[in-house]
Structure formats: C-alpha cells, structure tokens
C-alpha cells in the first residue's frame, strides 16, 4: 500500500517540521522518529530535486488551528513556494470570500453544504485527480461523496460531528441526549448559566430540529417556528452562544459545563491541540464528548480550488502532499481532527478514539446539512434573529 519512499518522505517532513518548531510538544513516538532522522535528512535532499517546478505562490484559506503549520512551512521551503496561509473562524467568512470569484485564494477548505452552494454558483475550479496520485490513499467511503459526485470540485480534508462536549467531573448523570440541554428539569435547569449552544445557526437549528424529531434542514415555517420557540425557552438558561474559541476556553476553565461543539475541538481539549506541536497523551481527563442519541449533524471539510486561482498546479501539489498518509497522520495527531488518508498511520489510541474518528457505522446514521437557497437562508435568519433579539 504505502511504499518506503513515501514513508521516509513524510517522516522527513515531520522531523524537519519539528526541527523548525522545536520538539517541545512531541511526547510519544519519539524513539521511532529519531531512528528515521538520519535517513530522512538524506532523502529530503533528493525530494527537493525531484519535486516538479511549481508556481512561486500559493494562497491558502483554512480554518484556524486546522493543520500542522510546520509541515506546511517545510513543504513551502522544500518546493520554493511562498505560502500565504490565511485562516477563518466561521463558514460565513470563507463562503463570503469564495463566492466573489475573485478571492485571490488558490486553495480553501470548505464544508459539504456550502461547497455545493459554491459549486452551483460556478465559483470553483475543477479538481484534476490525475495530479493528485495520493488520492488513492483516501478510503473509498470518502471518495465520490454525495455532495460532490465524482470529486469534480473537491477532495476530502477532514470530517466529524457536532454534538455535546461536557465536564464529566461536574456533570451528572452523564450527557446522552439533546433533551439534556433542552429540558429544564434535566441538565438545562440544573446547570443554568453553564451551558452554551453553538453560534453557527445551522448547528443550533439542527440540534433543536433533531430534538423535535424534525428534519434538521427544514425550512418550513411551522418547523422553524417550533424550533425557535424551543430555543427561546432555552435561552435564559444558557451562558450564551459560543464559538470554538469561547467554548474551548470556557470548558477548560470550568466556566462552561456543557457545550454544543465540534468533536475535534473537544478532542483537542482532551489531548490538547496546537498547530505546531504534536501531543498524543491525554491532557484533560474530565472532558467528554457525546453524540446525542437522537442523532446529530455530521459534516465533512474539503479542499477546493476557488475560481480565479492563479496557482492551480501548486494547489494540486499541496493537496497531494496533505493526502500523503504520513502527512495526514501528522496533521491528525496535531489538530485532533481526522484526516482520512492517514488513519492507518496514527497511533492506535487515537485511531480507536470515537471522539476523533467517528465510527463509520455511526456516520451512516447521522444527518447531513443540505445546501439552502438564499431564500431559505433568509427565512431561517429571520427566525434566528428573532431569537437573538429575544
């Protein structure tokens, strides 16, 4: 499956990457890496020669803390590419920029439903899979996805779920369902002022609609009305609507006890995550993550090449690089979100942690967000703002 050369190549990336960033955060597997180091240094020289000539620049737009930056720096240096690496904190930001068709980015990471929206607007460049030989390492489950048949515009980046992260020392009984955060006589009342819902309305709508047994993508007035009434009743008991940065800090400090969160963020708390340091051993034992039993929204992030990209060759080369199993593995153990191509190369405890690698049988049962029309989004926004104003 994976040849030796690839392994060395990637290990080189990892080791050199660590050398750039310092090895302070590297905790386990140190021996393995050390032993490879000598050969790796040799090989890395060849790598530089062997690499095809790429355009001098690459502008990347990705979520914050969502890759191993050392590896990116190393690749850039190795290929003589100047990388501009910009980050965003919400879907809105990336879609707003990409829908212009003149964003100036050569590569971006976009979730499944906005991806369809962008593809429909015609602001994405087609992906040439021939230029991404490492695509073969992507498990079949993540090829030819429902939201992008034939991988015309996208290649899988990472995936996960939006559920509940919670403090298992303070909260009891354990969190199992949306009902826990929507019903006052359960955790909602008990932990008043210590619970947060997600700032992204798609996620919070989804949670409310799933709890109500409705389609989480519904845009029917009666569904939205009911969801908003539910959320309005919930609101006085909440600490607020929190974004990644807020709930991660709040859960860690104990200010929040239950937060509506992405699995990878919670995994990042459990193991600690960074964008330069690799850590594997557990850090916070008292944080747990649950996919509520009623079901939850699942999502997949994908590489896309925006329209107007000037450095398409380099973009493909970069995708290919990240899809290298060991690079994917390094990214996975860095940010604690799963990179499918690297599954076989991550340490066992991470591979088998359901918080990071959502079990496949579970993924099949979850809900996926559907792309909405502007009309539908506006309708949802109107109800949502009513909640905000309440």
């Amino acid at each position, binding site marked *: 499956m994976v040849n030796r050369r690839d392994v060395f190549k990637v290990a080189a990336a990892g080791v050199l990457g660590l050398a750039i960033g310092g090895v302070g955060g590297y905790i386990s597997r140190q021996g393995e890496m050390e032993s490879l180091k000598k050969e790796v240094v040799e090989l890395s020289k060849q790598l530089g020669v062997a690499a095809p000539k790429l355009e001098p620049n690459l502008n990347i737009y990705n979520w914050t803390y969502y890759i191993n930056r050392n590896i990116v720096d190393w690749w850039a240096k190795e290929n003589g590419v100047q990388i501009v690496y910009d980050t965003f904190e919400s879907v809105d*930001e990336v879609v*707003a920029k990409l829908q212009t068709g003149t964003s100036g980015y050569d590569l971006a990471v976009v979730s499944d439903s906005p991806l369809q929206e962008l593809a429909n607007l015609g602001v994405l460049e087609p992906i040439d899979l021939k230029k991404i030989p490492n695509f073969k390492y992507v498990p079949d489950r993540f090829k030819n996805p429902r939201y992008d048949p034939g991988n015309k515009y996208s290649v899988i980046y990472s995936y996960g779920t939006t559920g509940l992260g919670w403090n298992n020392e303070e909260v009891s009984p354990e969190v199992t369902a949306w009902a826990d955060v929507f019903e006052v006589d359960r955790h909602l009342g008990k932990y008043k002022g210590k619970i947060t819902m997600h700032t992204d309305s798609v996620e919070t709508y989804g949670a409310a609609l799933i709890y109500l047994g409705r389609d989480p993508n519904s845009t029917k007035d009666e569904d939205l009305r009911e969801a908003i009434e539910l959320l309005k009743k919930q*609101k006085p008991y909440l600490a607020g609507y929190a974004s990644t940065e807020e709930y991660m800090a709040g859960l860690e400090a104990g200010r929040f006890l239950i937060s509506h969160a992405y699995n990878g963020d919670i995994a990042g708390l459990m193991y600690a995550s960074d964008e330069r340091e690799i850590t594997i051993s557990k850090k916070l034992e008292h944080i747990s993550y649950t996919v509520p039993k009623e079901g939850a929204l699942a999502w997949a992030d994908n590489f896309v090449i925006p329209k107007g990209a000037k450095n398409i060759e380099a973009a493909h080369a970069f995708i290919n690089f990240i899809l290298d199993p060991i690079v994917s593995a390094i990214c996975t153990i860095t940010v604690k979100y799963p990179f499918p191509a690297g599954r076989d190369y991550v340490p066992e405890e991470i591979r088998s942690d359901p918080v990071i690698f959502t079990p496949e049988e579970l993924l099949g049962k979850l809900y996926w967000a559907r792309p909405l029309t*502007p*009309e539908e989004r506006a309708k949802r926004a109107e109800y949502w703002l009513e909640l*905000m104003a309440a």
Partner: protein
Amino acid sequence: MGLMDVLLKYVRKNVSVKVALLLTPPLIFLAVWFYAPFLIVGLYSFDMINIYREITFTPSLVHYSRVLSWTGASGIFLRSLYFAGINVLLCLLLGYPVAYYISFKVKKYKDVYIILFIIPFWVSFLIRTYAMMGLLDERSFFNTILLSLAIIDSPIKIMYTDVAVILVMVYNYLVMMVLPLYANLEKLDKTLLEAASTLGAGPVRTFLKVTLPLSMPGIMAGFLLVFIPSVGEFVIPELVGGPSNYMVGNIIYEIFMGARHWWVGSALSMLFIAFILSLVIIYIRGVGERGLAI
C-alpha cells in the same frame, strides 16, 4: 500663442472651468468608490440583480416589505436606538459635569486638563475596546479586587451582556460629548452668570435658567456626534456582546455574510441609511448648518 497658452487663458478666464477642474477628480473618485456602491446596494434591494450578478429590469419591493414586516428586525432596530439613546444619556451625565468643571472651576492649566482628557482617545478605537474587555472579563483583577474586598460574592459577569456593550460605547464615545460641550461652555459669556447672581439667582437656578439653556448647542452637537455613530455600531457588540446583544450593524452583517441574502441585506441597509440621513436632516433643520461644523 501656443495651444497651451490658449488653454491656460481659457481656464484663467472661466471660473466654472476652474471649479470643474478642481472638482472633477475628487467627485469622480467619490462617485465611483462611494456612491456607485450604494447604487449597487439599491439595485439589490429592489431585486434588480439576480444570483448570477446580472442586472434585471424588474424592480420589486418584496425585500423591503419583508424587512418591514419582520418583527425580529424591528426589535433589534429598537434595541440599537435604545442602546444609542442610553449611550448619549450616560455620556451627557458623565461628560457635562466634567466639561463644566474644567470650563468653570479650573483656573490654571485648563489645557492640561483637556489634553489629559483627550489622551485616552488617542489610542485607537479597537485597542480602547480591547482594554475595556480586560476590565469586564470575569477573570479580571477588577473582579478579584471586588471579591477579595467581599463587595461581591461571585464574579460579576459583564462581558457579553447589554451592560458591557453600553459601557464600552460610553467609554469610546465620551470624548465626542465632552469636547463640543467644553467648546460651548468656554465660549459662554461668564458675565452672564454674574449678572444672574446679581439678580438674585442661586447657583442652581443660575445653572438651570442660564448655563443649561445656553449650553444647548453644545449638547445638541454632542448628541449628534455620539448618537449617529453609536446607532451604527458594529465592532463593540461583536466583541463585547453576544448574539443576544446585536445591533443593526450586526444584523446587516449577519444577513449579508451569514444568510448571504444580499437582497434583504441591501434593503435593510438602505432603510438604515435612510433613517440616519433623515435624522441628520431633522437635526440640521432644527439646529442649522453650523451644527455640522465640527
């Protein structure tokens, strides 16, 4: 006489040509990069641009009627007015005594007082806001001190509340109230006050009957300078408020960037601008053109 001379002579002779030459470049710039964008907003708001950014000639008022019939929007709109109103009031309550004190009671080093007052406003708006976030944070030393002095028994949560938004607004806009007030009080003929007291008015009566009415222009200028920008505030509620403390600026942003419904967003934007402009027009009608000479 060369062509250049003829041209120069023509320009020299015609004032209108001179004016045109001076005005054309800045006006073209403003027209293209300030007014034309609002034309596009207008087109969107009347549903005259479709999703593929093509202009269609079928104007419609659907987006306006949608915004106007939308209770969520009107709620947030009212909240913005309320926040801005409270902000003006607090700025006046905090600012008037300060301006009055410096203008009337300080004899020496008035300039020093005023410069001391202005120094915090030299710091950029964003940093000032951030500095306030440091105080409002639950983890701040401010809370610690209050806790250790047993004034409170649990940390005050101000961050991400209406109070935080208003406090930070007052912090940022106070200068806009104090400076026009101070300028006004300084110009006020102080012999009038002496005249009032010779006529038997006590300090309170003098203040209410003479000083206050005479300082109305300053108050009005301060009102405009504080109210207008604070209604349209976006950064402060975004940083120190949560979604529950949204103001108009934030819902415009939300509709544009979140719902990506440029049509409704444009209608909202146009209505908001119309509101602000009518406010200014009413102000000018009431106070006169001088009111804008800042």
